[in-house]
């Protein structure tokens, strides 16, 4: 597939927003259980604002993917069958819940935990909707695995936890080491599942071949013409047209930037404790996650590409 920046930004930004909410909710639960001290309301307030900003940014980016953004409201219609439609419904609901969560802490409502629980459930629901958009396309074999959902959740939570740790560094430093530690654990877990996905996809054999595509069993078939000389939607949408070298570099970049470097920086921050290290870890990891999402799209081989091998 040809990765679209709008969708890369949408999925990474909302993942961050979801992770941040889950991190805050986790902190609130832990503090109610007296596992940690209770942070001041400003932690939740700033966290909710940041989360809403990311979610809104993702939503805005998604509009750039549409040919007719002014009709976007129509996309809520087919929630019975379409995961995209479900995402379109859950995302605004989640934004509203996060806003309410921030408000609850600002005004000191006692029901903040319940609002947080609702928002957390919506965060999980949103992860499922987003991932299922890709998982349900069974002939995109690279995506058609539960690992896609696991990666979306873990990567979103890793960046959200790291953002929460950075935030704590500014407004409630006592919380920072614990959040950084959990962010490190989730980042490590994400590295394992993303690595498993890479290994799985390396072994995939495409179920469709040129033989099944045109229904001729001869082992030797060569395309001579694809019905258009100057390319078409089919050649623009489904081919990234980058070299193998570029794709490989993207992979090593995201493995380094999303996992290895943040883990190193988190480990350093746990011993030396300057919040600047965590800020750097967050920035590096987010760049890595953008590359990870680019690679996720680029790696998927659409069976329609079999029909578009040669221009002449």
């Amino acid at each position, binding site marked *: 597939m040809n990765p679209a920046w709008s969708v890369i930004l949408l999925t990474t930004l909302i993942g961050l927003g979801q992770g941040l909410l889950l991190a805050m909710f986790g902190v609130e639960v832990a503090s109610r259980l007296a596992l940690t001290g209770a942070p001041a309301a400003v932690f939740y307030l700033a966290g909710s604002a940041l989360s809403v900003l990311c979610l809104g940014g993702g939503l805005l980016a998604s509009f750039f993917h549409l040919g007719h953004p002014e009709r976007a409201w129509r996309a809520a219609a087919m929630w019975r069958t379409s995961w995209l439609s479900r995402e379109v419904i859950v995302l605004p609901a989640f934004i509203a819940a996060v806003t309410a969560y921030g408000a609850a802490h600002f005004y000191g409502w006692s029901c903040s935990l319940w609002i947080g629980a609702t928002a957390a459930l919506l965060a999980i629901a949103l992860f499922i909707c987003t991932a299922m958009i890709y998982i349900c396309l069974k002939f995109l074999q690279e995506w058609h695995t539960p690992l896609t959902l696991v990666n979306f959740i873990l990567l979103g939570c890793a960046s959200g936890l790291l953002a929460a740790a950075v935030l704590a560094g500014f407004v409630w430093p006592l919380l920072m080491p614990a959040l950084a530690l959990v962010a490190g654990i989730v980042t490590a877990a994400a590295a394992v599942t993303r690595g498993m996905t890479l290994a799985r996809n390396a072994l995939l054999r495409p179920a469709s071949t040129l033989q099944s595509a045109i229904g001729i069993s001869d082992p030797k078939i060569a*395309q001579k013409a694809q019905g258009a000389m100057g390319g*078409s939607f089919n050649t623009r949408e489904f081919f990234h047209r980058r070299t193998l070298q570029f794709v490989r570099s993207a992979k090593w970049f995201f493995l380094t930037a999303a996992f290895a470097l943040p883990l190193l920086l988190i480990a350093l921050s746990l011993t030396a404790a300057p919040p600047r290290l965590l800020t750097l870890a967050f920035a590096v990891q987010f760049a890595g996650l953008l590359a990870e999402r680019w690679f996720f799209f680029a790696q998927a081989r659409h069976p329609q590409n079999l029909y578009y091998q040669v221009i002449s």
Partner: protein
Amino acid sequence: MKQLALVIDLNVCVGCHACATSCKEWNTGGAAGPLTDQNPYGKDPSGTFFNRVQTYEVGEFPATETVHFPKSCLHCEDPPCVPVCPTGASYKRAEDGIVLVDYDKCIGCKYCAWACPYGAREIDEQQQVMKKCTLCVDRIYDTALPESERKPACVIACPTSARLFGDVHDPASDVSKAIAEHGGYALMPEWGTRPANQYLPKQPKQSVAAATVARGMDPRTIDGAMKP
């Protein structure tokens, strides 16, 4: 239940593109139009088409055969492109099985194109809505046309009658008989989409290339000896 479809005979398709041209001509002016083009006379011409004629070379030289392969929406009986559409713009008609896009509802999210394994859907870059073959739904029921012309434009245009049109659920129809008699097959059966359109396989024929080689005119040779 009726399921209208095309059956394409690969034995007689000569790759002349008359179907693609006629399709474009009818549909750019018909209810589904316009089908816009970008740079039609420029360096990288591109445009929206419902139908593309592709060409493949099958076999090993000199025993090769050229296969011309027209490709359009197959009006799948279990179309993966329909349930994924968030707006309901993509739908399959219950009355005749035609898969259509409502341009007034489509938001141009392209998700349906991702969900079609055949690459049968193309976004109209100017109108920014998804387009695909309509089986000429705006002419096959048009009682103002003479009965013989109530067929998709591509079927009428084909000079070799490689394209048959009819109800594949009616065992007595021409298309059903052609599929039964000539071993019609579906594309990429591995995805369970159950395409309504089918293709009639090329029958083995006497290889011209083999005869040429037998006459000592093998182009791989110089003065009768194999080229180095």
